[in-house]
């Protein structure tokens, strides 16, 4: 029984950290402890949650995607351009944006599979390419004045709940379903865990990897659409940087860098920890720069603790063997 409780605590350490932070900031400044503030945090983080879940698919499959930020930049510019410069209907612009995301993911996947180079390197390359394309298309302009109906995605409310939060919940549910319930999901874990074994077990590893990159592309595109809808404008500088936030959140949330393990709720918790840190430190009067330091330290502490636990575990296992 005692072991079981300890097991649960270990499993949900990250969740406890989140609650501890919330209580800590709440005690320092009660303003933090308001419904409005929680909704703010969730609204601000909705797009990060969606992109981070997309990235998690790739990371669980043993890959990495550095190009997430510039995928967002490119998707945002193209979506805004369709609406504002070519006067396409909103739904069509969104469709085009989403398809762009899937295609960008597909390009990453194809390059990774065909060139047989680690996706980290591949996406380092494609990131730069996407950056170039984005700035050429936008000509470094900001596209202002997105239509209100479009802005609803980022700013609107349904039954008193921000629409973007609803979208994030739906995405999380879908992702969780795919990863936990379908054989495709198990294949993703398998490839991340041991690619050779997966191949010999009859998995078409190349095809699964392509799909994984495309799924990430779609999620990232949605994330980008929410982001520009919230801002009401798009530039090529909207999005870049998100890849590192996502990576931090994923690692915080227990997605292994080696692949093969991780859960959707963990990633969401990871994003929320970063969000709570930002918001909380803002409220108690600490600026952006101390926030960077805090986020970095939290990440180091989390992975350090995780590794320490694993080592204890390994030692225990070894002793039994």
């Amino acid at each position, binding site marked *: 029984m005692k072991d079981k409780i300890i097991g649960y605590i270990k499993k949900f350490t990250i969740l406890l950290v989140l609650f501890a932070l919330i209580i800590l900031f709440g005690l320092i400044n009660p303003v933090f402890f308001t419904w409005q503030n929680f909704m703010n945090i969730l609204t601000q983080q909705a797009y990060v949650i969606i992109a981070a879940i997309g990235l998690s698919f790739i990371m669980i499959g043993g890959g990495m995607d550095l190009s997430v930020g510039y995928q967002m930049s490119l998707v945002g510019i193209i979506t805004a351009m369709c609406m504002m410069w070519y006067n396409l209907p909103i739904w069509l612009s969104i469709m085009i944006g989403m398809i762009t995301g899937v295609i960008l993911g597909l390009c990453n996947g194809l390059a990774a599979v065909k060139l047989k180079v680690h996706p980290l390197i591949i996406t380092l390359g494609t990131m730069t390419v996407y950056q170039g394309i984005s700035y050429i298309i936008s000509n470094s302009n900001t596209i202002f004045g997105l239509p209100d109906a479009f802005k609803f995605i980022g700013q609107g409310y349904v039954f008193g709940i921000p629409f973007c939060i609803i979208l994030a919940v739906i995405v999380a549910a879908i992702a969780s379903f795919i990863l936990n*319930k*379908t*054989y*495709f999901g*198990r*294949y993703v*874990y*398998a490839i991340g*865990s*041991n690619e*050779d*074994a*997966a*191949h*010999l*077990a*009859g*998995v*078409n590893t190349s095809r699964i990897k392509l799909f994984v990159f495309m799924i990430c592309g779609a999620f990232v595109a949605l994330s980008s659409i929410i982001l520009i809808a919230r801002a009401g404008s798009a530039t090529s500088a909207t999005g870049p940087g998100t890849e590192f936030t996502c990576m931090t959140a994923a690692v915080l949330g227990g997605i292994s860098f080696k692949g*093969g*393990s991780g859960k959707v709720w963990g990633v969401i918790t990871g994003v929320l920890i970063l969000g709570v840190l930002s918001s909380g430190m803002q409220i108690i009067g600490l600026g952006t720069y101390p926030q960077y330091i805090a986020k970095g330290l939290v990440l180091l502490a989390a992975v350090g603790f995780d590794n320490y636990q694993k080592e204890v575990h390994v030692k*225990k*296992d070894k*002793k*039994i*063997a």
Partner: protein
Amino acid sequence: MEYILSLRNITKRYPGVIALNQLSVDFKPGEVHALLGENGAGKSTLIKVISGAISPDEGEIIWEGKSYSKMTPKISKMNGIEVIYQEFNLVDTLSAAENICLGEKYGKFVDFSIMEKKAAEIFKQFKIDIDPKAKVERLTSAHRQIVEISKAISRECKLLIMDEPSAPLTVNEVDCMFDIVRTLKKKGITIIYISHRMEEIFTIADRVTVMRDGGFVKTLSVADTNREELINLMVGRELKENYPKTVNANQEEALRVEHMTGNGDTDISFSLRKGEILGFAGLVGAGRTELARLIYGADKRESGKIYVDGTQVQIHSTTDAIENGIGLIPEDRKNQGCFLEKGIGWNIAFNNLKNLSKSGIVNKAKAKAVAEEYRDLLQIKTPSLEQDVKNLSGGNQQKVVIAKTLATNSKVIIFDEPTRGIDVGAKQEIYELMNNLSKKGIGIIMISSDMEELLGMADRIIVLSEGKMTGELQGGEFDQTEILKLASIS
């Protein structure tokens, strides 16, 4: 001084397990002393006590007359104790010479010529042609093993502990290694030799100590004992027979391979009957695993046709192979056979996951039922199906790998080194299982570097050498020397 090393009443406890129980054993200078015991008998723990990797809870270690309550890695190295572990401890990206001289200093700067000269000398002693400049990652596992031995003896070494050194080696290479061991013995180096292969002990060892469940059973002079006695001492029970071979082959064809070329193999044709166990013999690098991978669709073939049950099948991927009823149990169970970080049930259901799913969604109840069925069939010893495979013993891990393949209902199963590195009891179980499968009419291809096992289990043996078929022997005419001769044709 009669003994170079004596262990007195060594006890090592782990939570819930006594790994070593009041163990006492003596080693004479210059002898080859074999340690024998099933997996879990405590051999590895004993090695670690001697090398100082772990400290015993009780007992005394007497090295050259001096008493220690425990060793440390530093003290044991200073005293000239070197260990070659089962898993390689080499830096892949460095050259053979650099690995051998790792940690040694010659002058202020790195001097490659000295290192390479030293390495070349050792290789020459061993009569092995390895380029000292070659990166270890490019060497075969047999050559890596030799680099490993060279590394150990390049220092002042009085006691060399070898843990399953022959596992990755072929017959010829084992002979060559034995020559090396004999040379070392002549130099007065004491050798503790651990192997599951009984015949090696009779070839190379002077004395043998049998261990069981962490305890000392008996030390015998090899000249005064025999195989049966040792096996009985090891398992503590009578084994029925070494190879429980039954003949089940019928006339129907299960698999036919015609003119298979690719992956280093040229023009290989053979046919496998239902219920037949077809052995593939050859040296490491003869192309046996490569052939298995071609048939299984894991590597691309240049040409060749595959027939299952008499009809030609198109196999371009591992998925195709499984769908056409071909299963493969890969040689490297940890890196290719299973997912160590995942549960037993997760692993067993994996190869057949598509059939256990409906519109893409895994039927967990069905998957669990399959996992339970095969856990019981193969008698995988585990408290729970959730247990990670990495926590199982080698034999049980191998059973999980086999269960994974069996769960796909294959008509033809390729066993690539099915018993490498697992203990006697588990080996017997796997042989029994192969018999049962062949009774059901499943065609079995068995690739093994353990000659005895191949002779004991196969109905027919095909010999490969350098990617070509060099001979075929029928059941009545198995002859080890003949096979070796065929395997060495170039």
